[in-house]
């Protein structure tokens, strides 16, 4: 066909309109076909279900300032230790039984005005058996771009986030299969329009009060009784279908999806008593007149996350656990925020890990501690409790994977004039921490070049370190996907890291 006989869009529209069968309109194209699936499909088998927890260490959590440090005595001869981000041997600890080293807790001087409430050392001591450290190089030093790529594996699986992919695989029948409490690029949805509706992220902005969103009426004062409300809902459904608006738009995809959520997901959440199970607000803070109760698991959660009642970061961890424990979700994303106070003490840095621009080691120490404190609490809960409270299903930990995602690494150099207090910029080269009994634990995959402090990769199948290579976002994504039984075209074989 020559250019002179090209169809314009309008000609195309009028020319073929008469030959088209009914229903697929532009609106359908926009939304993707997968939404037609019923929201409350039969649940996936709990015995097969796996649980993903993405912990967003926002701002650039440096692996060589946490669990892959290099000491001054490991530098090649002739290196200038003062200009490289290396640590004195006394500042690096290898807990008994651990193959993984870590940076020692910050000294009071290094803490500046912060008060860390935990340490990397405590974490490695407690959890090294299940730690998998994987070296990696990101592909962007832009926070939002890098964050999204950390979630999507730089688009390796049709642009789906790993949480979406896991939710689609394991979330059939779960009302809130994929929950996201992150921020920035971690909060962005993936780019695949064909993703099943159930796998789309449910945004939770206030974990402490989120339970209220899971019931249409409980906790409101002066309202009619439950039976009357049920009756009203029934009338409302008929009103919706009988109205001129409802009849006219009876095929509108947006309205159909909304009705599906209202008619199927809403009742599911209410029947499951999510408003109680997910209630993180302490009983004393719930006005008695509302007739609500704290979660039956609240005390257990508080035991592992002691500052649950005041700290929104711990509330995120607690909510992620409850969502999984009660079988409402199989993928949760949580994200550490910026400045946070415990009374008058500052326990978190402004801009989270990105405060490294100002004081690198302080920011890294404070923020790694903050992140790992919640991760430790989460692991404790997962190890203690049976999935769905059913001993036959085993401990939740057996089927869980925690992915500590971060944007990118930090500069590897220090200014010779101020080797203890300095700022760092963004750097692509870094590593990732994963925790799961489904992975090879107590192991580092890849290594660090002591001359440049750049991490290098490993053979995906054998696990042998491979200097001169780097792993990418897609490798981390593939590893998680493989462990979680998520198949997709282009998934890389990361068998070496699987248990």
């Amino acid at each position, binding site marked *: 066909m020559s250019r002179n006989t090209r169809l314009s869009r309008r000609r195309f529209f009028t020319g073929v309109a008469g030959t088209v069968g009914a229903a697929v309109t*532009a609106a359908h194209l926009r939304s993707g076909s997968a939404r037609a699936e019923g929201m409350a499909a039969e649940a996936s088998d709990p015995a097969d279900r796996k649980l993903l927890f993405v912990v967003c260490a926002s701002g650039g959590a440096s692996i060589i300032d946490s669990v892959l440090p290099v000491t001054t005595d490991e530098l090649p001869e002739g290196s200038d230790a003062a200009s490289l981000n290396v640590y004195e041997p006394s500042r690096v600890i290898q807990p008994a039984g651990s193959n993984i080293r870590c940076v020692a807790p910050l000294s009071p001087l290094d803490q500046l005005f912060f008060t860390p409430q935990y340490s990397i050392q405590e974490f490695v001591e407690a959890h090294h058996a299940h730690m998998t450290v994987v070296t990696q190089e990101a592909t962007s030093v832009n926070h939002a771009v890098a964050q999204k790529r950390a979630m999507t594996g730089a688009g390796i699986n049709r642009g789906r986030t790993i949480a979406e992919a896991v939710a689609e695989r394991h979330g059939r029948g779960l009302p809130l299969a994929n929950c996201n409490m992150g921020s920035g690029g971690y909060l962005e949805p993936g780019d695949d329009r064909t993703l099943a509706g159930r796998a789309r992220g449910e945004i939770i902005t206030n974990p402490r009060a989120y339970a209220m*969103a899971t019931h249409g009426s409980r906790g*409101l004062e002066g309202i009619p009784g439950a*039976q009357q409300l049920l009756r009203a809902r029934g009338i409302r459904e008929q009103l919706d279908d009988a109205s001129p608006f409802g*009849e006219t738009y009876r095929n509108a995809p947006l309205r159909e999806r909304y009705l599906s*959520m209202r008619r199927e997901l809403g009742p599911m959440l*209410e029947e499951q008593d999510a408003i109680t199970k997910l209630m993180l607000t302490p009983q004393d803070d719930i006005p008695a007149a509302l007739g609500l109760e704290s979660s039956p698991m609240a005390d257990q959660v508080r035991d592992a996350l002691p500052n649950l009642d005041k700290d929104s970061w711990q509330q995120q961890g607690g909510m992620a656990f409850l969502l999984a424990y009660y079988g409402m979700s199989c993928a949760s994303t949580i994200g550490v925020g910026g400045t946070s106070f415990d009374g008058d003490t500052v326990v978190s840095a402004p801009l989270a890990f990105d405060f490294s621009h100002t004081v690198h080691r302080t920011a890294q120490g404070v923020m790694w501690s903050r992140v790992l404190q919640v991760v430790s609490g989460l692991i404790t809960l997962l190890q203690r409790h049976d999935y769905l409270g059913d001993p036959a299903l085993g401990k939740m930990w057996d089927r869980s994977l925690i992915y500590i995602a971060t944007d990118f690494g930090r500069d590897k150099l220090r200014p010779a004039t101020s080797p203890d207090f300095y700022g760092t910029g963004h750097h692509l080269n870094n590593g990732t921490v994963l925790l799961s009994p489904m992975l090879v634990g107590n192991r580092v995959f890849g290594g660090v070049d002591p001359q440049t402090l750049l991490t290098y990769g490993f053979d995906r199948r054998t696990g042998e370190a491979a200097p001169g290579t780097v792993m990418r976002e897609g490798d981390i994504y593939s590893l998680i996907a493989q462990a979680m039984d998520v198949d997709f075209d282009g998934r890389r074989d990361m068998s070496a890291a699987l248990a």
Partner: protein
Amino acid sequence: MTNRTIHAWLGLSLLSCLGLPGCRDDQPEPEPAALAASTRNHLVWKRYHAFAQDLSRALELPTEELCTELGEFDCINDVHLAGLGGHEPLHQGLLEPLAEPLATTPLVTERVVLSACTARVERDRTDPVVFTALELDQPAPAEDSEAFTDTVQDLYRRLLGRDPIDAEYTLLGQLLVDDEGEPVTFGEFAQLACFSIATTTEFSFI
């Protein structure tokens, strides 16, 4: 026939065929003509601000009194903001609103509407503004009464900006009694009717 009468016929026909004795297979009913459906099917979600404003104006309540959770959280601008189509860029870094409703949006919508309708009814007990047809503690009016039709018509005009069709009167008439057929109070009817109308998709989408 007028348009309203056509839909009365349509609505009643639908209702009358809900398993009642008059609808046996050997008495074929003429198929009512359904309204033509949109083929463009493009709806726009009415998000948090307009949603709150519409409730506020319809029920003559300040927006800050529409709904509070746990005695402390603003439903619309805080705890349910994302679910109602808003976004919070400063603390959470949600720079754009979500494209579509969340799984909990229908429940959140019900909560806010129920809270607002209840607040209006409570205020009207001492200073009637919306539900003025009768005393709220009195039994609900009869379906064929002016009080009923005026109340329903007023609610539709306030909430949806139009008059109800006959089928809608008929459906809402069922809220005048409970499941046992016993009359409810006018206050209860007011709450339930307000809730039912304001949680239809017509209120949430344009």
